[in-house]
């Protein structure tokens, strides 16, 4: 294992450095953020106020945490469609435990994340060891998780409310002026950047995304890496759900539905190839902020829901057509 990895590592690192400065996708995303802000400031100068921007960053941090997990999976060349109900399960399970006295209050957050990790572990087992296409196995676990949650809640939104620590983590201020949610996203982001660039596990993810066969032959236990990546994705999705529950004070039936498409879109708009093996975390940050801003501005401008959906879809398509195109079929 150690023989083959260093050469690929140093090569990739060299290319990684070069690309990081000039990656057109990341530059386009950041450019779009600036253009969006400029254009909307013509409508109202409130769009450039620090309060508004900070509020957007806070809203973006929930999506950012969920998109981090999604990015790991997309880098593998896979996809995680179980996000909606993993988010909901994380939220519901942590709220359920929070209702069980003091011990429950303390363990609520870890327990929610643990449930997400379990769902992810199952996804990863299906993809890595059973070799089932990720789209299918994650759809199936999404359906099963939904079924479990429906049985658990009786089909209604659960009455348990979030614990104080969840509420504090999502809405409090540890550092004056910076919402805790943003801090949490910052920590997750730092962890992701470190893992992706500086650990064997992270480099293995890129290697598998490029060509799993080659990664396997160079001694990486690809099946275990795939399983772990899915487990992390599930854990982060559930963590996002825990924070959302803290933000809204309770869990809801379909709270995760609004996060699947934006998470995928954010990762892909940030220049991560949907085929895997290529992409930077900075791009994902740009994608997350871009999507959040777009959603916020569309709703502030009081564009009706149907218009928002259409603009949303068209913008994603347009940006993908700009730089997300595949290679031309030649041989």
């Amino acid at each position, binding site marked *: 294992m150690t023989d083959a990895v260093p050469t690929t590592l140093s090569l990739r690192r060299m290319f990684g450095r070069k690309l990081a400065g000039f990656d057109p996708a990341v530059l386009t995303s950041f450019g779009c953020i600036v253009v969006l802000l400029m254009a909307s400031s013509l409508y109202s100068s409130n769009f450039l106020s620090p309060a508004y921007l900070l509020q957007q960053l806070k809203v973006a941090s929930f999506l950012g945490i969920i998109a981090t997990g999604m990015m790991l999976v997309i880098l593998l060349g896979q996809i995680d469609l179980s996000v909606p109900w993993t988010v909901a399960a994380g939220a519901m399970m942590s709220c359920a435990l929070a209702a069980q006295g003091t011990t429950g209050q303390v363990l609520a957050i870890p327990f929610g994340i643990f449930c997400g990790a379990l769902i992810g572990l199952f996804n990863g087992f299906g993809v890595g060891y059973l070799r089932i296409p990720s789209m299918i196995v994650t*759809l199936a676990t999404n359906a099963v998780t939904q079924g479990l949650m429906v049985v658990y809640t009786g089909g209604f939104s659960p009455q348990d409310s979030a614990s104080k620590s969840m509420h504090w983590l999502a809405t409090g201020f540890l550092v004056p002026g910076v919402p805790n949610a943003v801090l949490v996203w910052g920590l997750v982001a730092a962890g992701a950047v470190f893992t992706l660039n500086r650990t064997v596990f992270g480099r293995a993810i890129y290697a598998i995304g490029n060509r*799993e066969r080659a990664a396997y032959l160079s001694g990486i236990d690809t099946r275990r890496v795939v399983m772990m990546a899915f487990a992390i994705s599930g854990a982060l999705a559930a963590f996002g759900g825990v924070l959302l529950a803290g933000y809204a004070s309770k869990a809801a039936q379909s709270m995760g539905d609004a996060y699947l498409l934006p998470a995928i879109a954010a990762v892909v708009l940030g220049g991560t190839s949907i085929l895997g093996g290529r992409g930077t975390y900075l791009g994902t940050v740009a994608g997350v902020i871009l999507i959040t801003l777009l959603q916020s501005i569309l709703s502030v401008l009081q564009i*009706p829901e149907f218009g928002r959906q259409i603009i949303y879809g068209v913008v994603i398509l347009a940006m993908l057509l700009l730089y997300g195109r595949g290679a031309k079929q030649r041989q």
Partner: protein
Amino acid sequence: MTDWRYWLARQRGTILAAAIFLVMFILYTSRHPAGFSANVVQTAANKGVLLAFVAMAQALVVITAGIDLSVGMIFVLTNCLASWIVYGTPLQTFAGVIGVLATGLVCGAINGLIVIYGRLQPIVATIASGAVFYGLALALRPQPGGQVNDGLAEALTGRVFGVVPVSLLVLLAVVLVVWVPFSRSVTGRAAYAVGSSETAAYMTGLPIQRAKMAAYTLAGLLSAIGGLFVTFFTATGDAAYASGNIYTLYSIAAVVLGGVSLYGGSGSAVGAVFGALAFRTIGDLLFVFDFDPLWQPLFQGLVLLLAVCLSSIGLLRVRNRLEWFG
């Protein structure tokens, strides 16, 4: 091997799906208080064909090794459109039906254009186009409502000779008019070839682009037929996001149950139809066995998961571990 054995090997998935459906349906009718009556069959058929149309649509695209996550949204969009225009005099109604089907074709063609000429990955491209289709549906029907030509609706959801549900006959007709000619044409064979190996299909000089375009466009058309039928059953148009998502999800489940390989290149739309009917029957089984309806989503999910895991049984035959990675 003789010819029929080749045929049998190729149709194994379809036959298995048909067998699963038959077993489930016999179980269902044997437990149903009304037994195997024309009414029971009619209700089951009317529910089943909706998913069957959408599943056929999904199968066409999956055969080319693509995926269409917008089929449910095309279904919802055409439902909303039909609740506006399939109404009035026979001529108006006829024009309305044509308009709905044409809309489906256009939606499918847009997906095809984006995937083929835009060279985007089908997953992301159809998610995004699905958002646009859903937006259009919402523009047409911000609130559920509308109406449909009663005579036509009654005729198409009723029975002929008092026994055979018309919806099943329409499904059969669509299979005969759309699927059979497609699968036997050069374009259809090219669709299978593209799904097996796009590189090989390219090298052989097959019409790759025409095959993919036909698959996506016909998928739009078939989803629109589903949307038209749901309008006949419910007599309203409803831009429900959840319903679009569920039809997309279930169409994939039906395709998997129907023996269509998600890697492309094998299976048939007929298999997907049986997969859809079987999946619907599984959902209904719980009711006749007096389970709490709350358990239905979990039960359907577990069946789907089981079907998916069973498909990996081929792993046991792998001798060279590199084959794991396709």
